[in-house]
């Protein structure tokens, strides 16, 4: 049913730290690897070794240039220019429009933990859900004719065949800088909720009102002392201050 369930107590999701993400794409690759054989399998590729390869990915890592600022809404102090690595995947919204627009009931939000999934046996491939998502979380598989999306590794996090430490999404496990955190964002006492509170985690495009469960931790403010503020100076040499020997050398070499 594409009616949304009443808000669940448990809201499983990810917290992504934009301060420590180095843009290595390990999360995207390990996501692709796990999900090629998991709940949403296969994660089809077309012409993977051809001229124009194309395929379905649940997680994509963008890199942006952020210009220096004298102070703005997200940072009061002057900030230098920087690179921003930005992993983008489904945010498992509290009120996901991708679910309510679905005409068949293939898209649904789980009542017990809030994970948004697609039942591929019911999907007719009309693509309307992908139009309804501003975050580009859903990708259509041309080969199978159905819509695909992040499952929050629902087939890992409850999987009793895995060791307890491995019961977390593949992207979280793969991250070499621990920039991705998985947990219950509905519980204010959980580690992820505390992290969000401490670091001032934000929603993406909150004005649309989809209430994303996943949060992003903005980069920590950079130190802005004189050292970073002043540009490198041109090197000048005061020959008059040099000892006679070096002054003579300078004169010889300057010829």
């Amino acid at each position, binding site marked *: 049913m594409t009616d949304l369930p009443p808000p669940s107590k448990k809201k499983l999701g990810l917290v992504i730290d934009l301060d420590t993400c180095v843009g290595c794409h390990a999360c995207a690759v390990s996501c692709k690897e796990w999900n090629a054989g998991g709940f949403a399998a296969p994660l089809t590729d077309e012409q993977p070794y051809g001229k124009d390869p194309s395929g379905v990915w649940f997680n994509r890592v963008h*890199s942006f240039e952020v*210009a220096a600022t004298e102070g*703005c809404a997200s940072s009061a102090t002057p900030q230098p220019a920087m690179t921003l690595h930005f992993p983008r995947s489904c945010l498992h919204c509290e009120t996901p429009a991708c679910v309510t*627009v679905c005409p068949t009931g293939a898209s649904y939000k789980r009542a017990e933990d809030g994970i948004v999934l697609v039942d591929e046996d019911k999907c007719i491939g009309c693509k309307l859900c992908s139009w309804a998502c501003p975050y580009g979380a859903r990708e259509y598989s041309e080969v199978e004719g159905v819509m695909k999306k992040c499952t929050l590794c629902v087939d890992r996090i409850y999987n009793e065949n895995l060791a307890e430490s491995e019961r977390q999404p593949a992207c979280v496990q793969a991250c070499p800088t621990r920039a991705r955190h998985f947990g219950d964002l509905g519980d204010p006492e959980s580690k992820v909720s505390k992290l969000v509170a401490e670091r001032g985690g934000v929603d993406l495009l909150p004005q*649309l009102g989809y209430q994303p469960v996943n949060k992003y931790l903005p980069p920590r403010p950079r130190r802005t002392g004189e050292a970073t503020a002043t540009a490198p100076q041109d090197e000048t040499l005061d020959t008059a201050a040099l000892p006679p020997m070096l002054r003579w050398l300078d004169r010889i070499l300057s010829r």
Partner: protein
Amino acid sequence: MHPAFSVLLFTTLSGAGYGLLLWAGGLILLPALQGRTPANGATVLLWCVLLLLGLVLTTVGLLSSMFHLGKPMRAWRAFSQWRTSWLSREGVFAVLTGLVVVAMLVLLVTGSLWPVIPVLAALMLLLSLCTIASTAMIYASLKPIPAWRHPLVVPGYFVFAMLTGWLVLMALVNWSALSDQALGVIVLVTFALAIVTALLKLVYWHRIDRQSLGATRGDAVGLPGRDVEVFERPNTQANYINREMGHVLARKHARPLRAISLLLFAVVPMVAAWLAWANPQMAGPVFTLGALLALSGTLVERWLFFAQARHLVTLYY
């Protein structure tokens, strides 16, 4: 947004079909409201032809829309989620309208149960209105596409249905000799519909050209207020998101295409009406050609409606 041809054809044809059903409903209800029974067999025959053509246009439209589905054989599932989905509602209303039209055709052909016909005609009118509204709401309800959220989108679908439905009706009735009085009314209505549609579209285009996306790239990455530029895309080749949401061709050629569509859907019908008025024996062919050209103009307009609409996800690319 990527304009899928099957969807453009669908909204154009079914728009004309439901518009025709609206006018047909009006034609059937009018004498009934005045307490008259149909004058003769020819009137009933005309009604049957109108209903049949409306049914064919809407059905062809619906079938063509199935071609953009990944799994057309499962299309029946789309009737289930009418409580939340405008696409599902559109399907339900379309099928109900079709059933009422078929019932009317059967009753008209068998000549039985005359008093039921106006009731069914009123029902058909209402259901056609609901179907057009649902089609428009599929687009108007999508928050990530500001150009489709514009308040003129829903009225736009209605005026296009009325205009194209009227022109199809004219292409049929003008093959028989009409009185000067009737032709006068026809010319007036054609001018009024064409002018209203053209004005609405001109205002809409003017507005969306000056509309902001309502969000910046900074908002999209959680750094509102910061000036953010794309440094490196996540994918070297275009992916589904780039192909489906990031269509740029139309923005380049918008001006000539808008002029072409305006010429075809608004100027051509007015010229056709004027020619028919000046030369009543030419009315049939002139209106038929006019209707076909106006439908192709509507197709261009629909192409622009898709291709010019910017999706918020393009902020990430």
